[in-house]
């Protein structure tokens, strides 16, 4: 007797494992092994995949509003093999939904829900619900824009449940709003409660399955009997390996799973659920106002009730498919509806230009967020990181504070709606030249209260008396002045050139403008031209335009309507500084 079989005997005498194993493996398969029976085993394969990749991710994941996104980013981009584990979990979850659908369809078509297998049918439906629960809770955990906004919709739907809605929603969310407690709750559900429920129901499902055995097809030759091992199990493994291959290829092709920008309650985001919930999402579009609950709860509840009650409705002993068509028609209709609604939803999004544009912006933003994260995420989390980033923060500050009046590139109001000069190109020679030649152009003072305040240096004024004495400035002089001002804005110094142009400015411009603190007319309203457009000048202008650093205090007179307001009572100094730098950079084309 070999050493190995002696060991086996010793263990068997104490545990009886051989009997257990042969009970598990020698299960008869009446009618013979079939590919149609593989789905239950493939699901066990999916669950194994999800459990193992899930455990690996738990070693890195930190559920809180400041750490969740950062830890997922770290796992995906900072840990060897992290992207693959996350990708396999992500696509494994989707594979599981597909396989559940096949399993359900097979059981329904073979009539395996009929007596005496009703309870096992219900356990299966329970497992389907748990699978969807896993999808829903898992989707939120990365705490990125996609998961955050999609899941908010789902919990808000739960909140519309009659009577108990508010309580259900608050218990799920851990409060009235989304935050760290939502994450810890969803995490507890995803890695603790749902796996335990899944295991309990799965054990019951398998025990009852063994009790009643395989349901052979109605026309199967039941005199032929295969054993589960190895005949059926070989087919099952074929399915399991195919599933694993598809998941691995998808994970490899996508290099893991997508990660959007960190969840930002203040942002706009084109939220969509994961593809397998798109049909429910589309359904909601057809029910408005008080009828909404029909789409969000009533129809799904009716569908669930139909499935649960199917064994009581279809009670004829025959499992022949033809006779059961009326009973299965609703299920087929549900399948068609899911496919159709999903297609409609995809088509609607494809045709929706605004959505496509928002989608494109979100994709660009997510690339920027991930780039930023690579420089290190501060202790106060990824949103603080984005807020401090000059690029994103600058754009947000401009949008909030400046874009009501000023245009800058593609931001701000249309040219004819702007009530302040267009800042596109501000600080360049072209910008200054257009101001000298045609200050009342639509993109300069044309639509502002200051129309007519600055006189063109080439066009005669409208007042005939003044027009008589008007002498246009020579092009060479105009060029010298624009070059000087553009150099001031770019903060480049050229002393020789400066002296000449400065002299010209102090002779020709100071009847209206300040220049190095000097002016010929204390009541004039033109801004300081020394250092015009420099960082210091821009900062001073944003903080408070009436300090003589840019404009005179009279500019802030409440009667002088339409002047730029001060922002130092609204913005922190570091934001003023950041905004000034951002505007200069963007205006001059990122140079």
């Amino acid at each position, binding site marked *: 007797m070999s050493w190995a079989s002696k060991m086996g005997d010793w263990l068997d005498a104490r545990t009886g494992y051989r009997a257990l194993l042969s009970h598990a493996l020698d299960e008869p398969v009446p009618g013979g092994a079939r590919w149609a029976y593989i789905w239950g085993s493939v699901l066990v394969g999916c669950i194994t*995949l999800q459990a193992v990749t899930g455990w690996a991710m738990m*070693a890195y994941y930190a559920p809180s509003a400041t750490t969740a996104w950062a830890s997922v980013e770290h796992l995906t981009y900072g840990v060897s*093999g*992290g992207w693959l584990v996350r990708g396999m979990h992500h696509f494994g979850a989707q594979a599981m939904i597909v396989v559940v659908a096949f399993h359900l369809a097979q059981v329904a078509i073979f009539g395996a829900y009929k007596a005496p297998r009703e309870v096992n049918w219900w356990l299966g439906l329970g497992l389907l619900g748990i699978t969807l629960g896993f999808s829903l809770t898992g989707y939120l955990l990365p705490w990125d824009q996609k998961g955050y906004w999609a899941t908010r919709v789902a919990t808000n739907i739960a909140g519309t449940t009659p009577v108990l809605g508010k309580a259900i929603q608050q218990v799920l969310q851990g409060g009235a709003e989304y935050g760290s407690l939502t994450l810890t709750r969803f995490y507890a559900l995803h890695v603790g409660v749902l796996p335990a429920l899944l295991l309990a129901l799965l054990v019951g499902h398998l025990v009852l399955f063994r009790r009643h055995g395989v349901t052979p097809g109605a026309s199967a030759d039941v005199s032929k009997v295969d054993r589960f091992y190895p005949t059926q199990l070989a087919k099952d493994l074929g399915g399991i390996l195919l599933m*694993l291959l598809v998941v691995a290829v998808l994970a490899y092709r996508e290099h893991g799973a997508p990660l959007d920008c960190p969840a930002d309650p203040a942002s706009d985001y084109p939220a969509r659920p994961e593809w397998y919930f798109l049909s429910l999402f589309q359904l909601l579009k057809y029910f408005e106002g008080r009828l909404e609950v029909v789409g969000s709860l009533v129809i799904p509840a009716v569908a669930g009730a139909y499935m649960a009650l199917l064994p009581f409705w279809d009670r004829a002993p025959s499992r022949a498919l033809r006779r059961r068509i009326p009973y299965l028609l609703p299920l087929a209709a549900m399948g068609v509806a899911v496919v159709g609604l999903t297609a409609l939803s995809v088509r609607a999004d494809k045709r929706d230009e605004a959505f496509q544009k928002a989608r494109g912006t979100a994709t660009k933003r997510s690339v920027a967020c991930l780039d930023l994260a690579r420089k*290190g995420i501060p*202790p106060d989390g990824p949103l603080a990181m984005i807020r401090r980033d000059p690029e994103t923060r600058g754009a947000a500050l401009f949008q909030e504070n400046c874009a009501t009046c000023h245009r800058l590139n593609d931001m701000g109001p249309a040219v004819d709606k702007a009530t302040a000069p267009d800042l596109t190109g501000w600080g360049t020679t072209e910008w200054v030249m257009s101001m000298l030649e045609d200050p009342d152009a639509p993109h300069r003072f044309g639509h502002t209260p200051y129309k007519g305040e600055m006189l063109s240096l080439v066009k005669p004024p409208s007042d005939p008396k003044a027009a008589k004495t008007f002498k246009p400035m020579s092009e060479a002089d105009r060029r010298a002045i624009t070059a000087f001002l553009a150099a001031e804005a770019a903060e480049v110094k050229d002393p020789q050139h400066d002296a000449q142009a400065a002299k010209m400015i102090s002779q020709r411009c100071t009847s209206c403008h300040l220049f190095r603190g000097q002016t010929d007319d204390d009541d004039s309203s033109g801004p300081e031209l020394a250092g015009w457009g420099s960082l210091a000048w821009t900062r001073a202008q944003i903080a408070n335009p009436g300090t003589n650093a840019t404009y005179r205090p009279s500019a802030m007179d409440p009667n002088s309507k339409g002047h730029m307001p001060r922002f130092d009572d609204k913005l922190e100094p570091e934001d003023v500084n950041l905004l000034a730098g951002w505007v200069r950079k963007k205006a001059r084309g990122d140079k």
Partner: protein
Amino acid sequence: MADGDGDRRSVLKTIVVGGSAIFGAGVAAPAVQVAIAPAMGNRQAEGRWIKVARLSDLKDGEPRRVPIIAEMVDAWTKYNRENLGAVWLMKNRDEVHALSVTCPHLGCGVEKTNTGFGCPCHTSAFDAAGKRLSGPAPRDMDSLEARVIGDGSERSVEVRFKKFRQGVPEREEIG
């Protein structure tokens, strides 16, 4: 059972065993890779010079414990200033010596005693220069490079901060 059937069964058994092995490996491999990632590619972190005290804060012959505060990256978080550890500084005129406060035995914090230094956990004792006198510590206290920079009242002490593996007789730097 016909021979053909027996052959078929054994082929199927091989398929099942092989297929199970492929599935097991396919699922486990990436998870194991991620799980053991911290032990792989153990890069040796270069010790950083960190300013820890003003020279005028130290007195000759009186060891002083100072915290090491510097930039730190912990997994995904980047701290601009965070406590990394502490050192004992000993001044002798213009020279400063630094000893790690971490006991080379099992990592407790070494304290000042009447005879030099001692570990409160397993009672290892060291002399005033950090040399092992008694107890389970496998080596002397770990000394760190220290230097004095600047002039006059602005003179300050910098330490090249490193961490070492505990419980082994040889000093071994850890990342």
